[in-house]
């Protein structure tokens, strides 16, 4: 019998280690905190995400569910032990296949797969799915992960990086991939100076409540902690209002007297790790007085004001009007109409918000998860009353973002703690805190009518959308404006009226989520297109092609469009469309409870801010020693901008990509590349990188007097420039030292040219648009309403494919999120604040995906390129819904299409 073993002898990665720990502590916590093995990630502390998977005696377990004492006498393997000498075959396969995007699930995936391969060296696809089913990934859609595992043992050798001028278009591994597969990547929770204090937040358990603090001083003193509230923030001279759109900034970092959403922070508690680990926050001295929460946007207008300054609970309205929608509908041969309701959708990145702050000289340094370092810098400076230059943001590797990590979350809280304690302070949100307090996709109730003439041409469309924007503004205005611009879909729509309203409630704050409302609106339009094709007895693909925008057409905003690729995407689906319909018909002829169907949907999406400036600036320099440094300030949250931006720059400059050294992002080291959102980094930062590369090339050509098509060679301290007429040479050490320590440097900015929208939404909101179309094949269980998506063929016009592997990764990952939105994801405030009640797709839920990359060059985009990141999920849900209807007759208008809703719709259709 054992009692209280405090010294625990463990065997970790083949080495004996002794820890002094509470025997019932989570193994994950001991690995990370006591042994410094931070490669194992904690995403939920509940076994739901599997990121913390380690092997105990070769068997995968969640280290967050394993008491450390249970590892005594057994061997523990973590990602750090996978590759004592270089990378394992499996890690290499992950790199080669692009299986890691953000990288937060990668350690868990690698360990689960290692466990499988040790027992089953040549697994089948379904064995791989079984083995990986316990690890959630939100970026990749699992396709490349499964391929990587299946390829172990027969995946080829690593490819050399392409030569000068051949980087764009090359299927190269991500340049920042190594740290993602060897466990070295530093996410928000992975770095803290020794002895950093721990910060935890006190949050509202109510949707709406006023509050008063009790004896804070007494409570603090008894526990050896410090408590900070909005008062402390005000004492610093801060303005306690943040927001991603400054004119709408309305959210306090710490609520002052009233909490307006469940999970809103009202105070922080700061103490040593030891104290904070044991502290019980349930007796924190606070008295809540609940208010009647405003939860239903349908009745919110006129209800109690969520924010006194917006008495009617209307945050903002959006509108685009062209021609006369009523007349267009009146003249139509057929009009279809529908009302669609969508749910709150949670970003569910596997990394909960985390970071650390410290003071260096007179600068507050914050290293935390983010998609928008410069916006964080601005918000933190305002909130904490600091001049902007005294805030430095170092983006930690972001373990997924998808829009939610654009808004500050813990940055001001850890900043406040660091300033007031003078010590480094760190914080990690629990999964519940993350799900309660950060932004969501807007739930929407949308109604529309679309009319066609007898020949099948769209004659008009009227759209109305009500978006539940939650307690604070966040990106509500962007959603309200983006939706009317895009609700026509990529189709020529002459008479058009689209109106939106963003309404405050005491629900979670709705913000940015991949597509800013457009995925919701696309459901409405694409469902109606199937209705109209049916009314016309026209083939659904032919109907869409007939109405697809063409080069030179004007959008509903009156903008003349160039480089329009939608018809090319639809055309690319033709072969599969014919085959899929034939396959489904053959399958259904056999009868039975399973029915197959095929559905289509399109997307278009403007890259960058809507009719607002959003410049990126890129610096490129060469040192006297011949280091070639690219200051790349776009945060790579997994989507690949570190790689893509470098590929573009390399070819613009004319040097091989292998010679580039990446710097940043870091607000102290990189110029502003704006936020990673709105599918803008390839287009906007990519173009700035292209311009910088070209400018530096010009300098080099001028110095050597060589022609435009000369070849450059950077060879240690010299650059050799060769053209038909001969060679010139620059000796770098002979050049005068310029700014930032470079002897040659270029810094260029690019801001996409747009025109403001007038009161009817007429103008030129975006400089570049991307297009796409999905074909979904599904199987519906007619007796249970269960939907299985079998195959999605996804054609996307990228203008110019910079990196096919990364593009496919975006497509597969976007489809996974679109599938989740279509079939299972529904965040219910107060009820689904974890990853077992809130369901996202697992490795077993994904269809086969066939990406088709189309290149219709954009005249404005860098080397013709368009954005892709958000486009990819827009068509998925409507294509699936249309396929469900094709299979079963069920017209599902409330998302997600859970089995009981699909069954009810099947029964309704049958009556």
């Amino acid at each position, binding site marked *: 019998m*054992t009692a209280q*073993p405090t010294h625990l002898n463990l065997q970790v990665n083949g080495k004996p280690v002794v820890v002094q720990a509470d025997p019932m502590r989570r193994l994950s916590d001991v690995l990370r905190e006591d042994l410094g093995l931070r490669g194992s990630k904690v995403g939920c502390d509940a076994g739901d995400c599997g990121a913390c998977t380690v092997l105990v005696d070769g068997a995968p*377990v*969640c280290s967050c569910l394993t008491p450390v004492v249970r590892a005594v006498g057994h061997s523990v393997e973590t990602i750090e032990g996978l590759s004592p000498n270089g990378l394992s075959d499996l890690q290499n396969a992950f790199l080669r296949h692009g299986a890691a995007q953000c990288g937060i699930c990668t350690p868990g995936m690698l360990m689960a797969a290692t466990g499988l391969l040790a027992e089953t060296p040549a697994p089948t696809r379904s064995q791989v*799915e079984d083995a990986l*089913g316990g690890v959630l990934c939100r970026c990749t859609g699992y396709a490349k992960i499964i391929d990587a595992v299946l390829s172990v043992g027969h995946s080829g050798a690593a490819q050399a990086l392409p030569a000068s001028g051949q980087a764009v278009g090359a299927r190269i591994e991500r340049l920042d991939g190594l740290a993602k597969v060897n466990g070295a990547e530093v996410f928000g929770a992975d770095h803290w100076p020794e002895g950093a204090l721990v910060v935890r937040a006190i949050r509202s358990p109510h949707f709406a409540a006023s509050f008063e603090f009790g004896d804070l001083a007494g409570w603090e003193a008894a526990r050896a902690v410090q408590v900070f509230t909005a008062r402390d923030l005000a004492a610093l001279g801060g303005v306690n209002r943040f927001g991603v759109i400054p004119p709408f900034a309305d959210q306090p970092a710490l609520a002052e007297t009233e909490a307006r959403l469940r999970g809103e922070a009202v105070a922080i508690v700061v103490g040593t790790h030891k104290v904070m680990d044991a502290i019980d926050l349930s007796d924190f001295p606070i008295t809540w007085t609940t208010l009647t929460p405003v939860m239903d946007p349908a009745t919110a207008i006129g209800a109690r004001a969520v924010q006194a300054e917006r008495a009617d609970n209307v945050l903002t309205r959006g509108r685009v009007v062209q021609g006369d929608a009523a007349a267009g509908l009146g003249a139509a041969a057929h009009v279809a109409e529908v009302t669609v309701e969508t749910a709150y959708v949670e970003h569910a990145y596997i990394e909960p918000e985390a970071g650390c702050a410290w003071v260096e000289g007179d600068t507050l340094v914050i290293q935390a998860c983010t998609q928008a370092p410069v916006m964080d810098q601005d918000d933190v400076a305002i909130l904490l009353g600091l001049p902007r230059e005294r805030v430095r943001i170092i983006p930690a590797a972001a373990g997924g973002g998808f829009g939610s990590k654009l808004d500050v979350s813990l940055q001001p809280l850890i900043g406040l703690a660091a300033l007031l304690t003078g010590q480094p302070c760190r914080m990690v949100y629990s999964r519940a805190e993350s799900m309660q307090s950060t932004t969501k996709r807007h739930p929407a109730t949308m109604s529309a009518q679309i009319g066609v003439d007898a020949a099948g041409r769209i004659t008009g469309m009227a759209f109305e959308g009500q978006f539940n924007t939650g307690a604070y503004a966040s990106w509500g205005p962007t959603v309200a404006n983006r939706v009317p611009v895009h609700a026509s879909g990529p189709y020529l729509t002459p008479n058009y009226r689209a109106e939106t309203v963003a309404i405050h409630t005491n629900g979670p704050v709705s913000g940015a989520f991949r597509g800013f409302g457009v995925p919701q609106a696309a459901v409405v339009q694409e469902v109606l297109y199937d209705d109209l094709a049916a009314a016309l007895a026209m083939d659904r693909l032919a109907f869409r092609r007939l109405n697809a925008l063409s080069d030179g057409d004007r959008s509903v905003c009156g903008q003349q469009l160039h480089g329009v690729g939608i018809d090319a995407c639809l055309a690319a689906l033709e072969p599969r469309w014919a085959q899929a319909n034939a396959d489904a018909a053959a399958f259904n002829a056999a009868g039975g409870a399973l029915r197959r169907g095929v559905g289509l949907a399109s997307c278009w999406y403007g890259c960058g801010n809507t009719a607002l400036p959003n410049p990126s600036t890129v610096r490129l320099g060469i040192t006297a020693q011949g280091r070639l440094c690219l200051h790349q300030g776009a945060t790579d949250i997994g989507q690949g901008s570190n790689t893509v931006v470098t590929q573009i720059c390399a070819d613009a400059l004319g040097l091989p990509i292998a010679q580039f050294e990446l710097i940043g992002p870091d607000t102290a080291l990189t110029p502003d590349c704006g936020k990673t959102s709105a599918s803008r980094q390839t287009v906007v930062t990519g173009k700035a990188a292209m311009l910088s590369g070209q400018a530096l090339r010009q300098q080099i050509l001028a110095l050597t007097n060589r022609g435009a098509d000369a070849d450059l060679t950077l060879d240690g301290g010299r650059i050799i420039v060769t053209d038909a007429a001969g060679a010139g040479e620059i000796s770098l050490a002979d050049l005068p030292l310029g700014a930032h320590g470079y002897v040659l440097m270029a810094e260029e900015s690019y801001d996409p040219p747009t025109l403001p929208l007038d009161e009817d939404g007429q103008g030129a909101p975006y400089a570049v648009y991307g297009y796409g179309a999905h074909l979904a094949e599904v199987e519906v269980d007619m007796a249970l309403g269960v939907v299985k998506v079998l195959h999605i063929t996804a054609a996307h016009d990228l203008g110019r494919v910079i990196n096919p592997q990364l593009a496919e990764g975006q497509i597969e990952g976007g489809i996974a999120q679109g599938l989740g939105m279509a079939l*299972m994801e*529904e965040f219910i405030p107060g009820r689904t604040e974890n990853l077992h009640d809130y369901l996202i797709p697992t490795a077993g839920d994904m269809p086969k995906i066939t990406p088709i990359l189309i290149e219709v060059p954009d005249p404005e985009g860098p080397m013709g390129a368009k954005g892709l990141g958000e486009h990819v999920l827009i068509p998925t849900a409507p294509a699936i819904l249309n396929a469900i209807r094709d299979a079963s007759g069920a017209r599902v208008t409330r998302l997600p299409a859970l*089995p009981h809703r699909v069954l*009810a719709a099947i029964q309704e259709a049958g009556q």
Partner: protein
Amino acid sequence: MTDFFRPHQLSDALEIARTGGVTITAGCTDLFPATQAQALRGPVLDVTGIAGMRGITQSATGWRIGAATTWTDILRADLPGAFDGLRAAAREVGSVQIQNAGTIGGNLCNASPAADGVPALLTLDAEVELCSTAGTRRMALDTFLTGPRQTLLAPGELLTAVLLPPVAGTGGFLKLGARRYLVISIAMVAARLEIEAGHIRHAALAVGACSAVARRLPAQEAALTGAPVARAASRIDASVLQPDLSPITDIRADATYRAHSATVLMRRLVVGICQEAEA
């Protein structure tokens, strides 16, 4: 620091349990998700080291599954066809990680209405063995489970084993959830059929997640008994099956759907087992 006990002898364990106030732990896959803390509060009695608590053994009186037997142990065990439902259930619990740690005893003592192990065990006429310093008692599993998160486990008592009489026939299990892995059942069904000469001689049927505790379906079993296998499907009838259920509406599904899907799943399961038996 948590007081931690991991005895090897059952008698020692029962002595510790007798003092009361200890948290009994096995795989901790239900206990850890229930707290945000980094350590489980003690004192803790870990039952996984007790001799005889893990593993499956057969004797003349039937089968004994130690309470600390993991789902992985069960799905890898060499068991007769009557256990096919239990093994299928084991494969459906969470994920490989959860199956490697979670135990059958934990599943029963945690007593979730959606516990995937229960329906198959009910069709195997399972009993539980409960031990304390006062002695050992046995009771039928459906007596032991009294409600959501409620059992007849007395203070000071441990669940030591699940006991199964010698059982014949072929088992099966189907689970319905909104995704493939890591999913709490909307409904699940288990069946064990003894088929002879093209007729169902004995039917044991159970449904989970459609009532406070998983239930056997006596009326439906009676309706099926004696039926020729070709008629099995038509004997599964909502009006016979559903009165034994009392499903609720929650975020996963509504009550009507639950009852309906249990009926559909049961019909498919029974037909599947019959077809396999015929083949």
